[in-house]
């Protein structure tokens, strides 16, 4: 079973603070990591390989810092990495990501399964999976919360808003997973040490014949700020004693139907 897992480098968003005066996010000294749901996709790949054997290749697109960040994926159990790096590949659009990933996957040789998270931790647009499936002419199974492979057949349970859907498809296939699918492992020290020695192929967009300067941009960002919070901010500090005051306030706002 040869599995491709596509991952994305993001800031550790738990550590991003908002500058109050400007409402801008502050990224200084915030460490880089792999997307949360990307780790679920990788964990699932490792579990499949543990049963079925084969090879896991992580494929990723990003700025040069990716070479360091990708060690996390290699420590978690990926066998090798194919990276497309360039300074301008920081926070790029889904269409360009998908185009570069498709070409990079072409360098990995034959595969049975492509796994991704249902969306990236930062932008959470959910487009790269379906776009990549279209580019590679693959069937897409999105929002999988469990996977089961027997022979050349993959069965998945998809988690949609209000129902689960069981589906079946022949390999090869592209699957996006939800975070409920598993609990990603924390790599052991020995795995972290080994990660640096695993094979890593680093390519540029030009190597893949996608000159990024010429790739038409599809969106413009006009502003990107923390939302304004017009909240009253009334704090009752005496717990249950303040309940009558709270009820009165809600009543005055017409929020209680009595």
């Amino acid at each position: 079973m040869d599995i491709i897992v596509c991952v994305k480098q993001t800031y550790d968003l738990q550590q991003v603070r908002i500058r109050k005066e400007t409402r801008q996010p502050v990224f200084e000294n915030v460490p880089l990591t792999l997307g949360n749901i990307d780790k679920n996709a990788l964990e699932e790949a490792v579990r499949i390989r543990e049963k079925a054997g084969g090879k896991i290749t992580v494929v990723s697109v990003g700025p040069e810092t990716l070479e360091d960040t990708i060690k996390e994926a290699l420590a978690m159990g990926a066998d090798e990495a194919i990276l497309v790096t360039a300074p301008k590949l920081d926070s790029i659009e889904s269409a360009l990501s998908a185009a570069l990933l498709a070409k990079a996957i072409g360098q990995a040789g034959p595969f049975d399964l492509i796994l991704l998270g249902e969306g990236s931790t930062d932008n959470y647009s959910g487009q790269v999976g379906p776009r990549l499936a279209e580019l590679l002419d693959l069937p897409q199974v999105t929002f999988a919360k469990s996977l089961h492979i027997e022979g050349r057949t993959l069965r998945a349970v998809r988690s949609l808003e209000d129902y689960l859907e069981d589906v079946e498809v022949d390999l090869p296939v592209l699957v996006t997973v939800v975070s409920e699918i598993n609990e990603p492992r924390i790599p052991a020290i020995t795995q972290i040490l080994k990660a640096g020695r695993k094979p890593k192929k680093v390519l540029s967009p030009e190597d893949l014949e996608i000159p990024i300067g010429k790739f038409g941009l599809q969106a413009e960002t006009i502003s990107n700020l923390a939302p304004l919070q017009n909240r009253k901010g009334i704090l009752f500090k005496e717990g249950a004693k303040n309940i009558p005051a709270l009820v009165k306030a809600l009543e005055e706002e017409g929020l209680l139907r009595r």
Partner: protein
Amino acid sequence: MPCLLVFSEQDRCAFELLQKAIELGKKMNLEVAAAALNGSQGEKFRHRGCARVYTSSQELLQPFDAFVYAQALSQIAAASQATVILIGSTRSGKELAGRLAQMLGAGCLTDCQSLEYEKEGLVATRNAFGGATVAAQKLTTRLQIYALMPYLCEPAAPGKAEGEVVQVSLDLKPSRIKKLKKTPKDLGAVDIEGAEVLVCVGKGLAKPEDVKIAEDLASALSGFVACTKPLATDLKWLPESRIIGLSGKKGKPKLAVCAGISGQVQFAVGIREAKTIVAVNTDPNAYIFQMADYGLIGDLYQILPQLTAALK
């Protein structure tokens, strides 16, 4: 004549998109067309104010499959000369939007919380950096796809002039995915996104049976109980259909009571559209107090039952 084309696999969401499209169409001088591919949808669209309803009874269109629907919509987009396509940003809608955008070479924004026509063109807002910020973005492609969150506006009401129904013959490749079965997640599923009152609970709850404290308050307020993601996915104390947050539902209630919730951004993005937020937490420094209209510092085990009693 170029048009705005709307599609959602869910009726209510489709009519909301239609309402939005009618509003934008007036400003942009564009006609509005709808793709009604989901069985009986066609008839329901006719009197809701769109110029044309594209429909097809081809068997391959049932049940919904993103790959097949992407082909269908790309052909309908061409036939209707659509320049803007609005899709419902449900999970099915999102996987359709990405595939369709790639098929058509279109730009696409998903999970849009608003879409307005301004001097620079159509501007959408959506969460960025995991919800820490809200980005205002515009697409620059000739053909544009926006996936809009459900409950963005009121659905278009029936009673308007009759649109033309166009039966289309689509050239569709079958999906390679076999759909085996559908199981409802939650037999008592409630409409979290449309609820007027939500009582949200998080890891401040100690035991599964304590969910009842929140249920009692919710029933006193004629609302529903919702929860943070870990309470449903890790602890399974509530069904997944009740999750509020970035990867769950976005509530827009008039009143949200958030108890035992610290207020991490992953949850906050699902509730910050609430008109009034009441927070109950023992930790005076909990972030939830920063986004609350009314904060009560204290133990939810004391406060919720007493609040319930006070409301009766």
